[in-house]
């Protein structure tokens, strides 16, 4: 296990060898409590916020004080899980802001929604979401997502996992562009649902 942890540190310097730090975003009090428990059982460190605005504040992306250098390590987030339907900033808008950021675009974002709307799912995936989960979210969903992130494998099939494999040789470049998803990759994501 120790050997694996060492290899892990080499591959993905930003992921702690011990546990993922997940930022969960949901306006529902009940859902925040549940997702927090699901993530803790999946051995993650969890920060829960109730809006997209607060999520951006936490990340330091709110355009206010730029505290990117201070406390960055303690706030280092490895995964963002956000509800789609939220008042003010929707999960989709939050996703876009994160993917537009040169610092945070590499953080995988998972979108959760109670509504199984294909156009919604498509837009999220096209905007760079790692996965779209249907609510109520199950422990098996959370474990699958966190396992993938911990192993450093992308969930986006061919092109994305290639990108991740390159990170074995070098630190992932922040300027590397996400390849557009091929229709077959999108279809395979849909079939998962």
């Amino acid at each position, binding site marked *: 296990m120790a050997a694996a942890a060492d290899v892990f540190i080499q591959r993905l310097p930003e992921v702690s060898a011990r546990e993922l730090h997940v930022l969960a975003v949901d*306006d*529902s*009090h*009940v*859902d925040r*409590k*549940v997702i927090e*428990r*699901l993530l803790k*059982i999946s051995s993650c460190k969890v920060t829960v916020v109730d809006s997209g605005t607060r999520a951006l504040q936490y990340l330091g992306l709110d355009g206010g004080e730029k505290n990117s250098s201070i406390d960055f390590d303690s706030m280092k987030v490895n995964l963002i899980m956000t509800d789609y*339907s939220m008042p003010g900033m929707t999960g989709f808008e939050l996703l876009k802001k994160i993917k537009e950021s040169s610092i945070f675009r590499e953080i995988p974002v998972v979108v959760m929604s*109670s509504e199984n709307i294909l156009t919604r799912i498509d837009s999220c995936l096209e905007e760079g979401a790692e996965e779209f989960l249907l*609510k*109520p979210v*199950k*422990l098996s969903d959370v474990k699958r997502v966190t396992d993938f992130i911990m192993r450093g494998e992308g969930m986006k099939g061919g092109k994305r996992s290639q990108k991740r494999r390159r990170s074995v040789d070098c630190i992932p470049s922040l300027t590397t562009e996400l390849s557009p998803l091929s229709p077959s990759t999108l279809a395979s994501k849909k079939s998962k649902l």
Partner: protein
Amino acid sequence: MDKVRLQREAAFIRSSLLDQGYLDEQFIQLEELQDNDNPNFVEEVVTLFYTDSARLIYNIDQALLSNPTDFTKLDDYMHQFKGSCSSIGAKKVKNECNGFGEYCEAQNYDGCFRTFQQIKQEYINLKKKLETYFQPSYDHIYAYYLISPYDLMR
């Protein structure tokens, strides 16, 4: 011995709630998240649901009193309420919400109003049953059987 009896009654109530469709698979999922360090997780979530959704119920009641009726607002509140119901596995209450959504879309005030009274009824009904389940006591069990004589006949 009394404790065993009460636990057995609680288990019976739980199966009954699941069998009769008051609760669904999601409730069982929540139960699986309990452990020795978090033995009351489900009760905490359900308590949170009832405290939190009281606000939504109030908002919907108020919105139904407003003239003209803001169906968008009603639909929005109901969407939030339905989401919470789904999160705790409150199957019957959640299903009643679907009807409300349809009436909202049709801008049918009477339909919305009537359906909402049914939703509130189911909501309170479930609350009483769950209280009995989480805190079984002879008073509660007696009250539970009074509320649902049908169950006595199973």
